[in-house]
């Protein structure tokens, strides 16, 4: 690693951790209904939304009602987004005259955005109209993230309330997350991004006369070229903040109009982790002990910091096969060097690798370089970070509820060792709670490995592979890992826009979002009903460095035991092949 790489990584984590407390505090105020300033200006908007919808924000819901409201709202969003894509050809704001999106692709895209995955089987500028991007994708970027936060808050209430049947009001949590947290942050970020050169216009694509005329490989008609633009900044801001990740353009954040400068890159990568990291502090505040939040954040940060250097080293070392072909991949004053296939010059190795780790640690999935072209060990980093179940920062809301489940499993494991009933935050963890926690841990690997096995054993699965050998297997494993964890990044060589992948992937995304929410809310409901018991001599303290170690151990054990065999067939074999050449 170069000195500059270390500086860039450290500054990034420094700025991120400095923002955790203020934003975490602010979000806790929002969810606890205490005054926080912005409510004085936007309060009337919030109240008129409730009035028009006919809901009372103070009506408390039990876990079944909360879940039902959430599922119905997501179903409505899904149908609307599907319909919008199918009808975009007849609707306005379609300067490139794009036709209806085919049914299987529209299904995959709708599932992808409602589940906060943002898997990109579509190619932004060649598939979707401005209207579909704005009314469909941007909206789901907001509300799917807000839904994640709502579910998290419900779980936190389950942990902090004493013998309560209810978990809060879904509509109020949804509206407050959107109005007071996501919208203001997105507004600030979009303006900052435009200042760096991200486009934001509803005008037509530009026609330009390229400098070099008379190219031998094109017909005279190509002397004029088209440059795609659009209302990109507003969508990119929320795609990052809401850990969504679906690009406005096909190349996602590698596209210079989505991510024009190293500073825009820094802001975007910061925005990915900003809310998931700060929510840890929010959690601590809401359960009345901020140390509990810092413990979870410490575990996440340590896990991520272990993997970033591995990626940096692998990518900076470059591709030995190209060295034999006479290519200079050394890091020098005048070049970044390393494995530059699929990477942008302005980001080089550091900006690309840091992003690839962050985007997969969080369930964001936006890319600023093509992960498919990474070296095997460079590519294993994003894959493993997703296979931990998106609990290392993870999605907005969804990560922390995953991490809390791992914390419950950690106290259970510790309880087994000493033979006592485990407790977490004053709640006794009983067989019903453990069943729900175990379900939560098991659903994801079943979806990921099951669909990978199906794809690799059928012709329709294998025919989409771009790269031969073990790398082709990695492409498929990566695809279902990403969709089964609602991440959305891809080894994009895999042709995912086929009926087979659109259907199986869409199902994987829906299962891993909505099937998980049901046991999760059931767990929250069960925890809420319990009495808060005082700390006893046999209670395992969950705010200590020891617990951080235990928690990391549980996350790594579960992830490694589940996925190492599959990883051995893909990236690990490929690394051995590459090293042997």
């Amino acid at each position, binding site marked *: 690693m170069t000195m500059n790489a270390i500086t*860039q990584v450290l500054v990034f984590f420094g700025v991120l951790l400095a923002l955790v407390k203020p934003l975490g505090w602010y979000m806790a105020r929002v969810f606890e209904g205490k005054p926080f300033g912005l409510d004085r200006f936007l309060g009337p908007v919030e109240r008129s939304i409730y009035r*028009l*919808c006919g809901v009372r924000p103070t009506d408390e819901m039990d876990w079944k009602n909360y879940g039902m409201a959430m599922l119905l709202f997501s179903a409505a969003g899904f149908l609307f987004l599907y319909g919008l894509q199918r009808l975009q050809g007849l609707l306005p704001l379609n300067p490139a005259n794009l036709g209806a999106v085919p049914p299987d692709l529209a299904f995959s895209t709708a599932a992808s955005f409602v589940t906060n995955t943002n898997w990109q089987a579509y190619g932004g500028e060649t598939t979707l109209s401005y209207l579909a991007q704005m009314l469909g994708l941007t909206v789901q970027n907001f509300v799917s993230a807000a839904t994640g936060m709502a579910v998290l808050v419900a779980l936190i209430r389950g942990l902090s309330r004493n013998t309560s049947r209810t978990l809060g009001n879904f509509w109020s949590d949804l509206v407050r997350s959107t109005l007071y947290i996501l919208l203001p942050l997105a507004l600030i970020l979009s303006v900052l991004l435009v200042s760096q050169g991200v486009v934001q216009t509803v005008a037509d694509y530009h026609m330009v006369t390229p400098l*070099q005329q008379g190219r031998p490989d094109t017909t005279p008609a190509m002397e004029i070229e088209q440059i*795609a633009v659009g209302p990109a900044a507003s969508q990119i801001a929320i795609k990052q903040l809401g850990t969504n990740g679906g690009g406005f353009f096909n190349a996602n954040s590698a596209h*210079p109009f989505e991510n024009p400068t190293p500073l825009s890159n*820094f802001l975007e990568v910061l925005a990915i982790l900003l809310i998931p990291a700060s929510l840890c502090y929010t959690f601590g505040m809401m359960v009345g002990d901020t140390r509990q939040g810092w413990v979870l954040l410490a575990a996440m940060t340590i896990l991520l910091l272990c993997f970033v250097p591995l990626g940096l080293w692998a990518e900076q070392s470059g591709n030995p096969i190209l060295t034999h072909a006479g290519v200079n991949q050394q890091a020098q004053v005048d070049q970044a060097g*390393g494995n530059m296939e699929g990477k942008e*010059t302005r980001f080089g190795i550091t900006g690309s690798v840091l992003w690839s780790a962050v985007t997969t640690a969080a369930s964001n999935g936006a890319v600023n370089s*093509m992960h498919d072209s990474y070296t095997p060990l460079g590519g294993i980093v994003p894959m493993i970070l997703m296979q931990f179940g998106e609990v290392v920062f993870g999605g907005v809301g969804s990560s922390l509820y995953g991490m809390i489940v791992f914390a419950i499993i950690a106290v259970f494991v510790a309880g087994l060792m000493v033979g006592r009933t485990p407790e977490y935050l004053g709640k006794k963890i009983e067989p019903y709670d453990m069943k729900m926690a175990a379900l939560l841990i098991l659903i994801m690997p079943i979806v990921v490995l099951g669909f990978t096995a199906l794809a690799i054993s059928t012709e329709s699965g294998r025919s989409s592979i771009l790269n031969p050998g073990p790398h082709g297997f990695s492409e498929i494993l990566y695809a279902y890992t990403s969709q089964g964890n609602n991440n959305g990044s891809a080894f994009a060589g895999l042709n995912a826009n086929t009926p087979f992948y659109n259907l199986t992937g869409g199902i994987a995304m829906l299962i891993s979002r909505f099937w998980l929410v049901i046991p999760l809310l059931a767990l929250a409901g069960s925890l809420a009903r319990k009495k808060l018991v005082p700390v006893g001599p046999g209670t395992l303290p969950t705010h200590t460095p020891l617990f951080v170690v235990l928690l990391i151990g549980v996350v790594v054990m579960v992830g490694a035991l589940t996925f190492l065999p599959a990883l051995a067939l893909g990236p690990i074999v490929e690394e051995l092949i590459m090293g042997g050449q």
Partner: protein
Amino acid sequence: MKDHIRPALTMLLLLTVLTGLIYPLAVTGLVQVFFQDQANGSLIVREGKVVGSKLIGQYFEKPEYFWGRPSATAPFPYNAAASGGSNLGPTNPVLLEAVKTRVAALRAVDPGNDLTIPVDLVTASGSGLDPHISPAAAQYQIRRVARIRGIDEAVVRDLVVQHIHGRQLGFLGEPRVNVLLLNLALNEKR
């Protein structure tokens, strides 16, 4: 369940108006006032004609121009209406062949150049529209461009040095050269 249907539909409608219409249009209005040039694509205008964008690379393969990164966009390189990378894996023989062909092409137009070939000059960018190359990649091409244009190498070198963009804020990203701007300056030199 029935109690939730009306709120679900109305809520979706209202949040769609708020986040899907008001928000993007508000951002558009705001930046069209404060950052008009950037919001519209950082266009470069010469003699009343739009010749490109500072941020979007263009395809150069004539030897009198500096070449940019190879581009994998379809159906032709640097297609700014269909961005994308090659997605070729590191052990894919197709990647090795492509790199060998590019190395051979660079050697063929500039016989006798014994500098090593910088990796960014023979590997496709992620977007296919990368406007930049590394200073090393520009350095490599100075001799050829000067020879074919019949200008002094020192003049071309000066121009390249002027176009080197350092790390942002001193530590972010990588040093780079904007190929389109460099080639425009080169043309204006005559």
